[in-house]
């Protein structure tokens, strides 16, 4: 465990930037100079904008099956003037479905990461901030959580709560809890012996105040990096779980993973039905990954390799 201590040590603010520049400002400067980070940031920005402005951007309403009559057992209408990318196999506008798919990916991804982060943070703070018996118990719970493969965890949650977006959210966050708990614990433990913590303690500050007011803000960097990288996996997992049929029971729903499932039935006639949602998932995950790794390098310059 002692190897973690070295990794989690944040650089003192004075050492990382020029005079007057805080650690966040100098991190921002480094981020701006990283081309792949900019690419990632642009992808993420476009994705978020598309998701938020979906009703304005999409030419039609999602999951309407309005043109179901035009879809025959052997053909799915391709691009036309009315439908830029054609129809999907349920007779909805494909472009509209893709745009609204961004929206559900973003909502489920962000909410699940927020829940996973919050629950993991509480466990990590309990373990790393209080230590002793609490630490042991919390880490055993985390070990048991880790002993169940993420997908099984997700299936269990979905079985417990029934199919739907909410259980997908909880399922994904359940798999994230151990990651954030371990991260925060390691980061807090690493700071415990540092001079500034000793100084605060000798000033007579209470443990809770030291942890919440001083040690926690210093752990913000790694948590931010992990959250960004987790969003990339969350986008993929949202798709994976709805690919397996754990999502919304409505098969025509505008969700990238679900679109991929239904596309499989017509793979030989209309491969583009699978191609577009798949590429959308990959690009979004790529954006969050690039941004996350650039953030890591910017916040901890020594880690770059």
């Amino acid at each position, binding site marked *: 465990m002692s190897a973690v201590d070295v990794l989690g040590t944040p650089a003192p603010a004075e050492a990382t930037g020029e005079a007057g520049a805080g650690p966040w400002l100098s991190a921002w400067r480094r981020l701006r100079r990283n081309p792949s980070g900019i690419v990632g940031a642009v992808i993420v920005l476009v994705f978020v904008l598309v998701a938020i402005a979906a009703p304005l951007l999409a030419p039609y309403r999602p999951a309407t099956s309005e043109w179901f009559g035009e879809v025959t057992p052997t053909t799915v209408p391709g691009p036309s003037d009315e439908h830029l990318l054609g129809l999907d196999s349920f007779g909805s506008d494909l472009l509209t479905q893709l745009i609204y798919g961004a929206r559900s990916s973003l909502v489920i991804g962000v909410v699940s990461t927020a829940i996973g982060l919050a629950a993991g943070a509480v466990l990590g703070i309990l373990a790393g901030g209080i230590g002793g018996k609490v630490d042991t118990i919390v880490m*055993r719970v985390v070990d048991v959580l880790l002993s169940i493969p993420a997908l099984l965890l997700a299936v269990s949650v979905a079985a417990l709560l029934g199919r739907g977006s909410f259980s997908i959210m909880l399922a994904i966050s359940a798999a994230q809890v151990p990651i954030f708990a371990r991260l925060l614990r390691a980061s807090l433990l690493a700071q415990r012996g540092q001079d500034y913590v000793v100084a605060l303690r000798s000033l007579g500050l209470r443990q809770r105040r030291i942890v919440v007011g001083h040690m926690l803000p210093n752990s913000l960097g790694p948590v931010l990096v992990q959250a960004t990288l987790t969003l990339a996996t969350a986008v993929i997992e949202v798709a994976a779980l709805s690919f397996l049929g754990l999502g919304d029971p409505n098969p025509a729903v505008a969700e990238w993973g679900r679109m991929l499932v239904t596309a499989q039935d017509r793979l030989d006639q209309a491969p583009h039905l699978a*191609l577009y949602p798949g590429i959308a998932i990959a690009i979004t995950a790529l954006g969050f990954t690039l941004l996350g790794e650039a953030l890591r390098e910017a916040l901890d310059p020594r880690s770059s390799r």
Partner: protein
Amino acid sequence: MLSLVVRRLGLLVVVLFGLSLLLFAWVRALPGDPARALLGEKATPAGIAAVNERYGFDQPVWQQYLTYLGQIVRGDFGASINTGEPVVTTFFERFPATIELSIAALVLAIALGIPLGYLAARRRGGWLDNIVVGWSLLGVVVPVFFLAVILKYALAIQFGWFPTSGRQNARIDATHITNFYVLDGLLTREWDASWDALVHLVLPALALGSIPLAIIVRITRASVLDVLSDDHVRTAQAKGLPRGVISRRHVLRNALLPVSTTLGLQAGALLSGAVLTETVFSINGIGSYLFDAVTQLDYPVLQGFILFIAVVYALVNLVVDVSYGFIDPRVRVS
């Protein structure tokens, strides 16, 4: 070494006990009355009572748990409520398909990943390095099931080089002993059956292997770079040792340590990916069975399978940790 194994097995027992408690509580917390779900629309109070009595759903919860625990210890995991098949039987029928796929994917990933990672590190910044780094990023962000669909479309549907689904051609009347089809063919000397099963594995393994491949390449590359700048490598070079000897004995052996630990951590991801790949290629592994069990509230199946999978998962990690000691003698000492 032995004490490590014993300690870890002891921990496994503790974890499994906790897990069984968790699974038991979880299955009881599922929405819906299992007896009602089982009988469907024809449920009458008398019928529900009969089912409850037969499966013990009407007993006090703690007694149900004790009964359950006792059965597990005796290796009796009950029978599926839907099919009546013993859970253990189905497990040994279904799980080999998933394991076979995972092993094939892992073998592919190791066989490609370690040489690629090594070569990329040796010529850092060269064209191969750039391609490898780029592709490994792609391997992380492209979902397995999407890759599986693409491979199926391109190589099976368009070109017809590989079969689109299943584990073996239905016309081949193969004998199955272990339910690892490739192995079965070898054991019974039915070479064509073995070969056919292998051909069926190629596309699923390629798709599934993309996850560990990306990670193996990245870690091999990074740790070879680390080791290459070590003092002992410079000393070996100064002694005038042949390049091949340095690579094998001094660089690769040290560089593979981090790779072997990550492999253990990949077991869970591999399993999840295998379930997804199975659905694309209609392979009768644990995936479809587990999801049927979820939708039909098949308690014994859910409990049994999750426990089995947790055991396999824990054992894989144990094997990885032990093999770590064999690759790196320093671990054994400390």
